[in-house]
């Protein structure tokens, strides 16, 4: 792979994610956030799973703390992407502060999939910037479009977010332990939902991840090294 094909692939990834950004914009407005708040999330948070989680919890009537905890919990994986690609990037301040915002699933995948560090750097910056621009444009389009729809439920937009999470989850569940955690999390969330404030069931269910570590060590569905999941900025 040469530099041009890395850049071309990066733009393709950005385009796919931009289309996904449209669905985020629509879902966020349907959840009750303003267009400005929706766009601020894509600009400042810029990590898709967390953004969906935040608007999901808020839309369900959850409190600020629960929404932030769910979003930041999902965003914690970006730290591990950063660890993985930081030797490739070889960054110094203040560039590092700028690069950090672009550390997401796609850019980490493109950076670590290249044969040389130089191409890895190209992959990171090209993908990060392409996704950033197109994800934000997509968000704006989706949010503006959704404000034109009086009741988002007519378009089934309230079913879009769980489906988005399911598609993300499908890439993460590998190995017996991950399946056990999935089952535990579902049971904990549903069983607690009638008794605790909105948003809290999600945090309680996060405990399932800890429970998943108990018991005999099993082969764990860690994402393959060098190939983090696509399609979630």
């Amino acid at each position, binding site marked *: 792979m040469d530099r041009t094909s890395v850049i071309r692939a990066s733009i393709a990834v950005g385009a*796919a994610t931009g289309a996904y950004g449209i*669905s985020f914009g629509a879902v966020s407005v349907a959840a009750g956030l*303003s267009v400005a*708040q929706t766009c*601020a*999330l894509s600009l*400042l*948070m810029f*990590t898709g799973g967390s953004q*969906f*989680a*935040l608007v999901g919890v*808020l839309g369900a009537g959850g409190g600020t703390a629960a929404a932030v905890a769910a*979003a*930041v919990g*999902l*965003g*914690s*994986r*970006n*730290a*591990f992407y*950063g*660890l993985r690609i*930081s030797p490739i990037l070889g960054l110094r301040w203040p560039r*590092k502060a700028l690069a*950090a915002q672009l*550390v997401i699933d796609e850019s980490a995948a493109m950076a670590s999939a290249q044969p040389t560090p130089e191409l890895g750097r190209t992959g990171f910056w090209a993908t990060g910037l392409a996704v950033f621009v197109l994800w934000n444009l997509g968000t704006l389009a989706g949010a503006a479009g959704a404000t034109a729809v009086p009741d988002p439920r*007519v*378009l*089934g937009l309230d*079913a*879009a*977010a*769980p*489906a*988005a*999470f*399911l*598609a*993300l989850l499908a890439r993460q569940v590998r190995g017996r332990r*991950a399946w056990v*955690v*999935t089952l535990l*999390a579902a049971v904990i969330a549903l069983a607690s*939902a009638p*008794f605790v404030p*909105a948003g809290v*069931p*999600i945090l*309680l*269910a*996060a405990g*399932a*991840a800890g429970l*998943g*570590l108990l018991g005999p060590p099993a082969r764990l*569905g860690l*994402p393959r090294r060098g190939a983090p999941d696509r*399609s979630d900025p």
Partner: protein
Amino acid sequence: MWTAVLAGAAGCYLFKLAGLSIPDRVLAGDRIRQLAALLPVALLTALIVVQALTSGPRLVLDPRAAGLLAAAVAVLLRAPFLLVVAVAAATAAILRALTG
């Protein structure tokens, strides 16, 4: 809402920056890596069931559940991401239109 938007964004940014800044060995522990892999699994699962199967404090089966089922089929058929989302939304929308 703005508080949640800004606080959430700050928290996510700090994790991104931390990953680029701290030495690898701090987070190299096996348990921590495993927890990091399992945490998204637990959170995503909880978000799915809560958003598809609850309405406030009540557990409900409505067109969202049908949408989720359709999405599951699409995932099993290895449909691309956007198609999975579109299939779920369309299923829920059509069911609502039919049942009024």
